[in-house]
């Protein structure tokens, strides 16, 4: 049984426009989303703003009821069996809101601990541990209203872990954090994964998804446009692997020879000042350089560089925009 199972999930919002002549407008936030996440997997949901990531997570955390389709968390239906799901999941949506700003961090954690039925003896130990983990140990007694944005984000993380859930939903967890804080948070996520927790992460930081996730679904306009491991996704844009060779004089013969090679997709030449740059698009990436060099024997060659495709290239290709 998968930790998270999503089948044809769909969510439509109706909004009313106008004060006198009320018109209703329908916005499809999530169109048709299906995926599954195995136990202990770190799954990423990648997409631009408004793609439907947060809406999907809200449906999975039982806060929103789908318009159609179904989702199961540890075998329990998110609509009808929410009570069985809630004790086992933790989530953060982050941001400025969602915490009691008139109370201290410790009080906030105590409150949520009791809501999640954590025994007092357990929470007495766990609260200092969590505060230490997110770097708020020395500010635990201060009221949240005095916290910076980054501190609030970290407190959100601690809050989501207060009941030691098996399954975590992290919606853009590093947003608003400075690089040091963000790095610390990613380490926390890795540690959680080591503890065999299932994690669904949404983000629009490519390198973060690449670094952390075992599998990624790219979502755009409410639909999943690609779903695979980061490596496989990058292969979607392997054609962007370009080897640039500086040369002095490129003959047409050379170009046709290159084009005839079976590992070469395309060849083009760019004139830069006194030199010409030969651009060879090949799936093999920098592996092809030795073979190319044999073809260049006898020709003067300057700098040779190769550009590997990144997840960002894949993402941009998938959700539109220029490759």
């Amino acid at each position, binding site marked *: 049984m998968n930790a998270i199972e999503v089948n044809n999930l769909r969510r439509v*919002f109706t909004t009313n426009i106008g004060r006198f002549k009320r018109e209703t407008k329908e916005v499809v936030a999530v169109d048709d989303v299906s995926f599954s996440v195995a136990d202990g997997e770190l799954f990423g949901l990648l997409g631009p703003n408004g793609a439907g990531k947060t809406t999907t997570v*809200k449906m999975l*955390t*039982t*806060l*929103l*009821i789908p318009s159609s389709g179904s989702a199961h968390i540890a075998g329990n239906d998110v609509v009808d069996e929410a*009570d069985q799901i*809630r*004790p086992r*999941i933790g*989530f953060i*949506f982050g*941001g*400025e*809101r*969602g*915490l*009691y*700003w*008139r*109370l201290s961090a410790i*009080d906030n954690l*105590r*409150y*949520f601990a*009791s*809501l*999640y*039925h954590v025994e*007092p003896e357990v929470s007495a130990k766990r609260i200092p541990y969590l505060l230490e983990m997110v770097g708020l140990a020395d500010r635990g007694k201060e009221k949240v209203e005095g916290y910076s944005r980054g501190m609030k984000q970290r407190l959100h993380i601690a*809050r989501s872990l207060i009941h030691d859930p098996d399954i975590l939903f992290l919606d853009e967890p590093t947003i608003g954090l400075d690089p040091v804080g963000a790095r610390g948070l990613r380490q926390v996520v890795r540690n959680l994964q080591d503890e065999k927790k299932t994690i669904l992460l949404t983000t629009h930081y490519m390198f973060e998804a690449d670094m952390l996730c075992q599998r990624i679904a790219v979502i755009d306009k409410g639909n999943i446009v690609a779903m695979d491991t980061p490596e496989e996704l990058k292969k979607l844009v392997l054609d962007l692997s370009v080897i640039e060779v500086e040369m002095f004089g490129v003959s047409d013969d050379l170009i046709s020879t290159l084009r005839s090679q079976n590992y070469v997709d395309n060849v083009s030449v760019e004139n830069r000042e006194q030199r010409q740059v030969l651009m060879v698009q090949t799936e093999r990436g920098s592996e092809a350089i030795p073979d190319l060099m044999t073809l260049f024997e006898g020709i003067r060659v300057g700098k040779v560089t190769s550009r590997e495709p990144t997840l960002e290239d894949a993402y941009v290709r998938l959700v539109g925009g220029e490759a």
Partner: protein
Amino acid sequence: MNLSKLPAHWRTIRISFEMQLRQNFSDPFIIFAIIVQPMIIATLALWMLQDQVDQFAIFVIVGSGMTGLWSSLLFISGNAITGERWVGTLEGLVASPTPMPVIVLGKNLANVFQSLSSMLASYALVALLFGLSIEIQQPLLFAVSILFAMLAFVTFGLIMASLFIINPAVQNWQNGLEFPVYILGGFLFPIALLPGWTTPFSYLLAPYWAARALQAASVGAGTFEEMALNWGMMLFFSIIYIITSRSLFLFVLRKARVDATLGMQ
């Protein structure tokens, strides 16, 4: 309801109570509604009644305390759920394994407890300003009546919290609902002054029975029949509120999940 969860729920009620009290103490709006307003009403009423002040002092104190109780119910307990939404914590609460009524109960308890302190404040004010010494004739009956009143108000608060979130328009009527209950509840003048057709409406209000019990006990008119009636009615209403609130909450929260109104509106 899962009985094995009772100890956990009881813990939650206690913590919810504590957290609400803490938040209330730093909220000037609440301080006003619970303490300042009832004191001003008490002063006003006492001044208006000045020829008969000795006779009516305790009546006014109890009555103005009731106005504080009702205001706290209306403005604070009523906003128990909508308030969480404004702050952004509602989603966190709904997604927790604890049922919402348990959380709201703890908050209501804090509000009622706090506004009873306003009755004490009025007592002190009157003693100071008017130099009167006031006595409660039947203190034991008074104390028991307070307990019943707390029960009735706390459970009524459950209903109010869910009504307020069902329809945002209900919020508009908040201000308009404050004084009618003072009138129909007979807090500061007997309902005998009102036209006869309003009496059934008074009888339908738990606050009316609370005021009646407390006023009877304070002036020594607490006969067995009178108190049994008052306490019985408060108990009756409390039970109805508890039963109704369960379905109401389920309905309300489900609706919020469908309409996507758990977050900001």
